């Protein structure tokens, strides 16, 4: 290095230092307010896992927009092979936290699968899944679907249209295979809900008897395939249909190998989807870090829904990077920007297909947890009856609105968020009012799970055992 260059460097450095000091002076005044309440993170280097799905967006955005760094967190984000690997990673500490299926922390905590106490301070999104069938099945289904005047099928399409097809396969002695992403995934429950609502039995689990295939009494045989491999598996003919998150339904349309028949928005309007999971041990050991990462995620979710989804194209651009979701921009954009393409060319508006913040999407409601627990019981993953209190206690063990509230309040205090965008923390009970908007019209009241289970024509009820 020449002398002149060295001098330049020194000057540069001094200049930076000066600016830095000025910045510090300003920020110290503004930051002391919360720095007192909210301490520095105990653990600064974190590694988060995710599965290549568009609903991992809050994590990517929190990283790319510097929200994690604003909290003094240095986060590495790493795609995982499948949900099991991801969960094991969190449990054995290779990952500090991850984008998880809502059912995963619940199942882990009650010990269905690997037992570990996982909690969630942050719900990642609403909706965002779809059910896709292969072109061949679609042709067979089509005759049973009512048409609109323009000849397009009437949506939502119920599984009633699939029932005759499944029956035909059954008569011919051919198994009707469908894919979902994980035994305790939203997709499994949504697919089951949709099938059962149309009179197709998706099969029971019997964990006490060692049967965790979930195919007892089944008309349609459901099995696990990692999300990114869904289209390829469908194309290979191993499965006839699947339920998965985006972009893997839209991918099927683009590749011309399948037709999405229904979105989960139509199965259960504004259903809670992924959560951000960490171990209870992590939250206990690193309380500040936990609150801070929740803050960063809340900010990311806000940004994603800001100004009527105005930032979505920018978000799609980030998600299409190979280290995040990595699918083509157009494929991701399809659902992320408020439309959904069913049959090729049949593009319909679904503005709430991906909700990241509005409708209190990020608040971890106990009632959401209870719905998942109710479905675990309905299909036998929870082998025996449980009291309503058990449901509530389990929900409270896993879902942690307290952490969320601390994070949100500190954001409000700093002026980074508005109080009216959040539930009223003073009165919020964590239970959503009874929700009637399911495809089969059955109302869900989170405070009465056992009563809810009685309403289903297909599914285990009080006293039933497989």
């Amino acid at each position, binding site marked *: 290095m020449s002398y002149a260059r060295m001098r330049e460097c020194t000057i540069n450095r001094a200049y930076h230092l000066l600016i830095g000091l000025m910045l510090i002076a300003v920020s110290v005044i503004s930051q002391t307010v919360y720095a007192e309440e909210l301490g520095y993170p105990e653990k600064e280097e974190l590694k988060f896992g995710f599965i290549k799905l568009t609903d991992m967006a809050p994590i990517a955005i929190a990283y790319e927009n510097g929200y994690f760094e604003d909290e003094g967190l240095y986060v590495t*984000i790493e*795609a995982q092979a499948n949900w099991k690997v991801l969960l094991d990673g969190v449990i054995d500490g*290779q990952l500090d936290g991850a984008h998880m299926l809502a059912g995963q922390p619940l199942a882990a905590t009650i010990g269905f699968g690997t037992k570990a106490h996982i909690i969630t301070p942050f719900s990642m999104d609403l909706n965002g899944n779809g059910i896709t069938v292969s072109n061949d099945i679609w042709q067979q289904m089509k005759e049973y679907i009512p048409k609109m005047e323009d000849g397009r099928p009437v949506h939502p399409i119920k599984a009633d249209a699939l029932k005759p097809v499944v029956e035909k396969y059954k008569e011919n002695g051919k198994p009707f295979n469908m894919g979902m992403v994980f035994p305790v995934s939203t997709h499994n429950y949504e697919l089951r809900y949709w099938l059962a609502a149309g009179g197709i039995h998706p099969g029971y689990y019997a964990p006490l008897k060692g049967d965790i295939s979930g195919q007892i009494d089944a008309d349609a045989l459901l099995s696990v395939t990692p999300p990114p491999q869904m289209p390829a598996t469908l194309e290979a003919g191993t499965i006839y249909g699947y339920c998965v998150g985006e972009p893997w339904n839209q991918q099927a349309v683009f590749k011309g190998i399948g037709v999405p028949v229904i979105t989960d928005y139509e199965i259960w309007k504004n259903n809670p989807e992924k959560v951000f999971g960490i171990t209870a041990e992590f939250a206990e050991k690193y309380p500040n870090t936990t609150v801070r990462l929740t803050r960063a995620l809340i900010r990311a979710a806000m940004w994603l829904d800001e100004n009527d989804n105005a930032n979505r194209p920018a978000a799609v651009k980030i998600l299409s990077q190979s280290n995040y979701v990595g699918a083509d921009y157009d494929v991701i954009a399809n659902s992320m920007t408020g439309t959904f393409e069913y049959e090729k060319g049949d593009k319909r508006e679904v503005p709430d297909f991906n909700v990241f913040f509005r409708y209190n999407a990020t608040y971890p409601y106990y009632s959401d947890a209870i719905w998942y627990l109710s479905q675990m019981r309905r299909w036998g993953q929870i082998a025996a009856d449980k009291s309503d209190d058990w449901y509530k206690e389990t929900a409270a063990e896993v879902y942690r609105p307290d952490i969320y509230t601390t994070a949100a309040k500190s954001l409000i205090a700093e002026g980074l968020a508005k109080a009216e965008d959040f539930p009223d923390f003073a009165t919020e009970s964590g239970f959503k009012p009874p929700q009637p908007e399911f495809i089969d019209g059955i109302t869900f009241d989170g405070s009465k799970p056992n009563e809810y289970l009685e309403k289903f024509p297909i599914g285990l009820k009080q006293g039933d055992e497989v």
Partner: protein
Amino acid sequence: MIRNIFTTLQALVIPLIGMIVFIMLWSMAASNINTSLGKFPGPQAVLTQFSALYTEHKAERVKEKAFIQRQVERNAKRVAADPDYVPKMRAYTGKETFLDQIITSLVTVSCGFLLAALIAVPLGISIGLSKTLNTAFNPIIQIFKPVSPLAWLPLVTMVVSALYATPDPVVPKSFLNSMITVTLCCLWPMVINTSVGVASINIDLVNVSRVLRLPALKHVQKIVLPASIPMIFTGMRLSLGIAWMVLIAAEMLAQNPGLGKFVWDEFQNGSSDSLSRILAAVFVIGFIGFLLDQGMRQIQRLLSWDKSTASR
């Protein structure tokens, strides 16, 4: 003279023609294969991806600089507010580029290979020298040799997780997993070749050593080791070739950082560039494999007295 020029030309022109024919066949075939991810990438698409991957790498380095800068500022801020704080610089948390993945794979394969050599050569020598050890170990080696190292991967992963449970690991577990898998796969060919090399050492050379009454250690150092170097290197070249192949597969399977993960990620991404990126990676993998073999051959040539084994 003319004949000389002719042979040189032949040596240059014939591979060139082969290359051109290959590229032509490839582009022809490529335009006729339609996958659900679009047309199979031709040479042009792969070339484009090479430059795209390089551009990405450079862009990532720029981001890294900004990241470091921000960190410096944040640390300064923190120190001003909290004088007890000992500032720490963290490595860039952004994505690993294609070049980073190449380096990761190379480091992994080298470490695994060296570890294997450290174990295999002494073990092979002991087995080659002692009939008893040979009889004891031979069945084990014969059983483990045909096992695909990938079958070990889950076991390695679990054992590493169990034994290497530090909160702040110096090297990542994933690196250890890949490395140990490579080691396991290198081990057998090296042990076998070394022991065969040692056992088949010319009896006259052993007699020379006996007449000189060389002590055991000196016998190994002066006679056994140099005598079996050609065989040791044959084993090493063999195992390095296998190791490179296995590493890529292990990285794909276990999602451990490296070229294999790059390939798998791209396959999962299913974007319209994925196939050409995978193909670009395939060429790089092949080329590195070739360089590794050539490198070993050069080292072998340098160290081995038996030049004939190095020319193969």
